[in-house]
């Protein structure tokens, strides 16, 4: 495979990269998707979370070979959707953001959760976000942010 084809935030892409390159690096270095952060590079922290065919994945673990023919959504695309705006506003209103380094990944994880379960309870939110580490907030306000988004965004998810 010489070139890899996929869609990024709905736009068709063709990139000429090594198939073993990490999706994370291609998103950040080639496609300027700097919302996607590298917190650990080992699938533990969730800062590099994006959606692949609608499912939450750690982009640090995805080789480009596995991206061929898939749909990738990063926060750069998601933030312009109604759902994205709703979540971002809810995070801002509940104090869910401190240093912010984990936040883009948290927003993507929250989207993945809400798309499967539009009205999650606290326990379900905790479980849905359990792969996204945050060292600032202690999580309470992030969980409130997701609850607020679910409440405000009735019908969106």
């Amino acid at each position, binding site marked *: 495979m010489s070139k890899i084809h996929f869609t990024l935030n709905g736009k068709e892409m063709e990139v000429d990269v*090594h198939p*073993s390159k990490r999706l994370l690096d291609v998103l950040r270095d080639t496609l300027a998707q700097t919302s996607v952060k590298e917190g650990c590079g080992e699938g533990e922290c969730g800062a590099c979370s994006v959606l692949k065919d609608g499912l939450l994945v750690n982009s640090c673990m995805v080789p480009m070979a596995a991206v061929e023919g898939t749909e990738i959504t990063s926060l750069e695309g998601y933030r312009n959707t109604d759902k994205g705006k709703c979540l971002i506003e809810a995070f801002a209103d509940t104090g869910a953001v401190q240093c912010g380094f984990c936040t883009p990944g948290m927003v993507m994880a929250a989207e993945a*959760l809400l798309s499967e379960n539009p009205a999650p309870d606290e326990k379900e939110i905790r479980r849905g976000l359990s792969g996204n580490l945050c060292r600032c907030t202690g999580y309470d306000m992030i969980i409130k942010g997701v609850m607020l988004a679910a409440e405000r965004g009735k019908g969106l998810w």
Partner: protein
Amino acid sequence: MVNTYYPGNLEEALEIRNQHHPIPLMGGTDLMVKYRSWAGSLPEFPGPVMYINHLKELQGISKNAGSVYIGAGTTLSEIEKSRIVPLLLREAVEEMAAPALRNLGTLAGNIGNASPAGDAVCALVVLDASVKLESIHGGKRVVKVEDFITGPGKTELKNNELITWIIIPQKEVSFVNYRKVGTRKANALSKLSLCSDVKIKNGIIDDIRIAVGAVGPTVVRSRIIEERIIGNRVEELSKKIRAIIEDYSVIIVPIDDQRSTSAYRKQVALNLIQQFLGRIGKEEYID
């Protein structure tokens, strides 16, 4: 730079595997981390790599002739959500890592990686599951997971074979018991895990299966001890628990590592087995 292969179908994959012996890469959750390099540069795989996660022939979960078949490319999330996968395996998978990782990771990858701390492998050993291994020209063999994994990172996989399916015989059990003791409450690796089930018939233990993960180089399961338990009347079991625990105490020989201690692993494994045995006769179940 190492060679990379991206076969279009299983036949092609087996051809490449036969000729070049590349490392098969499924979801990448183990290998992309194990061989990761500096951010922005390529992973440093020790040899050629073949991506096979996309192969259509390796997808899906089905039931046939008393067994459940799980395609090697099936993700952990798909397994977790499947209604036909045995409960014990679903419970084990549900507690593995976190949602994003379960969307990538596969059962076959877990088996191939042969980590002593692999929770799914522990469940598969208890379930008497097998892997189907395929090679070119219709080469096939089926090997029990328990026999397939021979040590940490070591398997019986030949350099021209691929794991294509996981086969789990269906079995009626009275209740299952899965307990993971992780390094924390979520997104954690196992310090140890206990997978067990039991079948009780007319008040007699008809079958029992007990496996402990992460307490040795491979999953610990003893048919000999299980045979000693089978055939006992449920109400008589309590008298024998002490002897059974002593038997397990001999074969559970864990190590100290960065996640836990040998003493803890052993004690908790024995406590959990004891707790499970204690539940027999007390739990409600279908006799």
